[in-house]
């Protein structure tokens, strides 16, 4: 099945290829197939498919990846505004829902 694509030119993902050690961990953890390994370096090849989950940045030993990760959830953003916190979908509290 073709991957669904959300809005383009909007994600905050960045990879510093100079810092990258080519371990390939970002490729293993990315659920949207955003990275590719070539010439012993990772490259961002499908930026617009990134959903900013942050798995790559967290699992990068050399901190070559940065991304403003968070929930891509409108209800979560509204929750965050109402409670004056970061966007949160409230999955673990009693009013939970969105994932």
């Amino acid at each position, binding site marked *: *099945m*073709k*991957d*669904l*694509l*959300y*809005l*383009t030119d*909007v*994600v*905050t993902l960045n990879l510093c290829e100079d810092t990258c050690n080519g371990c390939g*961990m970002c490729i*293993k*953890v*990315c*659920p*949207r*197939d955003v990275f590719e390994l070539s010439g012993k370096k990772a490259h961002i090849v499908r930026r617009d*498919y*990134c*959903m*900013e*989950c*942050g*798995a790559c940045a*967290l*699992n990068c*030993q050399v901190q070559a990846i940065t991304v*403003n*990760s*968070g*929930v*891509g*959830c*409108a*209800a*979560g*953003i509204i929750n965050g505004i109402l409670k004056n916190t970061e*966007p*949160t*979908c409230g*999955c*673990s509290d*009693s009013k*939970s*829902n*969105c*994932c």
Partner: protein
Amino acid sequence: MKDKYLIGSIPVSGTDIPLITTELNSSDFLGAVMVRWGINRNNYWVNPGLYAVGFPTQESDVFVTANYKLSFDALRKNLTGENGWILVLDTKGVNVWCAAGKGTFGTKELVNRIRIVSLEKVVNHKWLILPQLGATGVAAHNVKEETGFNVHYGPVRASDIKKFIRDGYRADKEMRRVTFGFKDRIKLIPNDFMYDKFYLLGTMAVLFLISGISSKGFSFSNFSGEGGPTLLKVLLAYFSGIVITPLFLPYIPGRHFSLKGFITGATVFLFLVILKFADKNVIELISWFLIITVISSFLAMNFTGSSTYTSLSGVKKEMKISVPFQIGFAFIGIVLQVIGKFI
């Protein structure tokens, strides 16, 4: 009832490790159906800790999961015929993906749980298999540093575990990708339907009250003629945003969920006009167009949280454009609804 999956125990260095079945029974299925409808959803968990599957030995694999019962069930039913250990983290009864996003399925909890169950006494290797979607909360290199255990990310879906093992513990591209097919979307609809019910009831209440207004003033007797059709239209708009839009998501034009919901709502409105179920004067007609499309658009926008391909930056951008429209539509829709009663 909660513990029907326990079928015995295995003694390992002085501790009895509970043995579980990989067969799901009728209460597991019933529980799954109920949580999909939002019933008992926040209380559907298993005790964190170590469990045994089949006839595990010191060499057997360790599979890590969340203590949401649906996550636990998804894993164990896919381990039929395998021998292994299941390490259940305390994610407060939340699934792997959401808990990892919040950090409860995270490095700290994994490190703690490894220590609590003294995993190094149970197995003689340093190898853990985690669901790939747990990577949002777990930093593999930090776990290695703190416990000596190597985190190996498995497939996204538990149903691929056997293939993953067969392929020499390698997850291919397809196993690593999240999908959002028809079946995935349909499973989410009941829960969203129940979760957003307060929007439905609130909107119904407001519009029902307005339906009591006529040129002669407010009267309860107006409800009998106007109340029913009003509630039905709100229900259809709700259905449009929560059921129709998610079902046909990839086929509805536009990338913004709110636009998709608007289009579905406009289509529903068009059907109402064709079926002559819309209203007598043009003001009410415009009012219903605005109200139906805004309800559908707002609820479809909320489905971004259930989807598996939207980013935080993207949703923020979408909301900046859509929310002002939605507020305008709702306000004008309600005002015209009242004005329409006097024409």
